[in-house]
């Protein structure tokens, strides 16, 4: 079973802007925690801060008992954190295979694991040796996620995976995520699409203005329409 992620009093400044203003939450071990909120609430900044791409100016971040704050991104990754960013960040000039090789780091590509991934994302097999830049947006998103799961990790951080994806692919993604959840990995996911969030998430944390304004089981939020409206407001309608 993977470790839990905890954040205590995390502040992040970007230049002059104070984006994270004291973020406190935990993503329980082995569960999928959804991070929701309006645009600009600080969700992506939170993920990047955990990843070490941006330095927290204050606060503690820990994966299990291991502190993560102030570590460079490469160290955070080697502690078992995988990150599929909002921008997908696939290496366009490299092939699909090469992208996954990089994701696997020191381990060779595991055949069984790859077959499992191809089960959800057949396009990756089809374009195995093709330049990743030639893939469509949806396929690139698949590649980004595949790269994050090509080896088992302690914590998976995924930023808006369904953005701009066709419904059929969203379906494949949900199936994939559910199977990954079954392996007991801790997942922290930012997602604007509430339907997806509801299906995949065990826990939910809602952010606004750089702070967590709600936390609790997903089932609870899913059942309470007025709470959804209050916390997520218009974003609920615009992402179906």
């Amino acid at each position, binding site marked *: 079973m993977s470790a839990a992620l905890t954040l205590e009093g995390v502040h992040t400044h970007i230049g002059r802007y104070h984006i994270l203003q004291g973020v406190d939450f935990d993503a329980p071990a082995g569960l999928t925690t959804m991070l929701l909120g309006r645009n600009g609430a600080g969700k992506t900044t939170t993920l990047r801060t955990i990843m070490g791409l941006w330095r927290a100016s204050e606060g503690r971040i820990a994966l299990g008992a291991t502190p993560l704050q102030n570590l*460079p*991104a490469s160290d955070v990754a*080697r502690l078992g954190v995988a990150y599929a960013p909002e921008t997908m960040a696939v290496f366009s000039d*490299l092939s699909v295979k090469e992208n996954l090789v990089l994701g696997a780091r020191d381990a060779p590509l595991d*055949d069984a694991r790859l077959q499992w991934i191809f089960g959800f994302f057949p396009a990756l097999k089809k374009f195995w*040796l*093709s330049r990743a830049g030639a893939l469509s947006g949806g396929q690139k998103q698949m590649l980004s996620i595949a790269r994050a799961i090509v080896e088992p990790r302690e914590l998976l951080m995924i930023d808006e995976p369904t953005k701009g994806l066709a419904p059929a692919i969203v379906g494949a993604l949900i199936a994939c995520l559910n199977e990954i959840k079954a392996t007991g990995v801790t997942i922290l996911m930012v997602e604007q699409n509430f339907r997806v969030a509801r299906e995949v998430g065990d826990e939910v944390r809602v952010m606004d203005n750089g702070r967590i304004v709600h936390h609790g089981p997903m089932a609870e939020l899913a059942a309470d329409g007025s709470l959804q409206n209050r916390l997520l407001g218009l974003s609920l309608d615009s992402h179906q």
Partner: protein
Amino acid sequence: MTALDAGQASPRRRAEILPALTPLIVALIAAPFIGSFSTFVTLTAAGLAMGMMIFTMASGLTLVFGMMDVLNFGHSAFIALGAYAATLVFAPLAGWSSADSVWANLAVFLLAVLAAAVVCGAAGWAFERLIVKPVYGQHLKQILATIGGAIIAEQLLYAIFGPAQIPLTLPRTFEGSFVFGEAAIEKYRVLATLVGLTVFFGEMLILNRTKIGLLIRAGVENREMVEALGYRVDRLFVMVFMAGSALAGLGGAMMALYRGQAHATIGGEFLVLCFIVIIIGGLGSVGGSFVASILVALIANYAGFLVPKLALVSNILAMVAVLLWRPRGLYPVSGR
């Protein structure tokens, strides 16, 4: 490896071949104006050899820039240092150079260029740690710091080696030319071309067939993501920097041999040319700088023959022309 490797070959868009053909196109355009076939052959051979030497100097620079956005003006110092390092080898081994033995000649040549590469690689490490590292990520400071470093380095070279040019004589075997009818191709130029091609294929092999090469290519595209995948990009960068400096030194040594003298001004002179080449080629692209080097050298040679007054600015004109056609260079790296 598994059956997975038996997948499709990477599709190459047709448009990608065109930039690589530009040197050929230029050669074809220039040919009728030059008239005489033998002159054309001589000029083209000279252009190829010069292009190879320039490529050797420039390829490291493009990777350094591509990976870390470091515009290294200090590159000129390594070109010059390589030239002087060659003199240090040739001085005690002058006997080997003037001997009648091909092996002795070859040995002193190889020793000289190897020495240049090693010395400059080490100097590159020092330069990166002392001058570049403290200003990572700060573009303006990094430009200024590397300029300062280049000035200091050039002055140190003058202080150590003296301000005068130091003569270098080509080993016996490489003097003179191969003569084909009326066309003469200097032997050294053939050697330079061979060395350049070796460097190119070596780089391509490393970049495309090794894990480190994979990391470098990925790092040129998106350094942050490589870091987020668990790799220490700064260590990678130091290696690339050292390799780039070593190659610059190698190129400098070869150029100095070609000219028959070593002097610190060679650095500044070829730095501008390197910049032009990597701009034309596309920042971060080794293949691009290979094509660009040949293109630039050919244009310079043809222009030198056809319109001598324009020869020295032909490079800049070529750069402007290419940028108007392809604003990001011949082979831009994705995501830049």
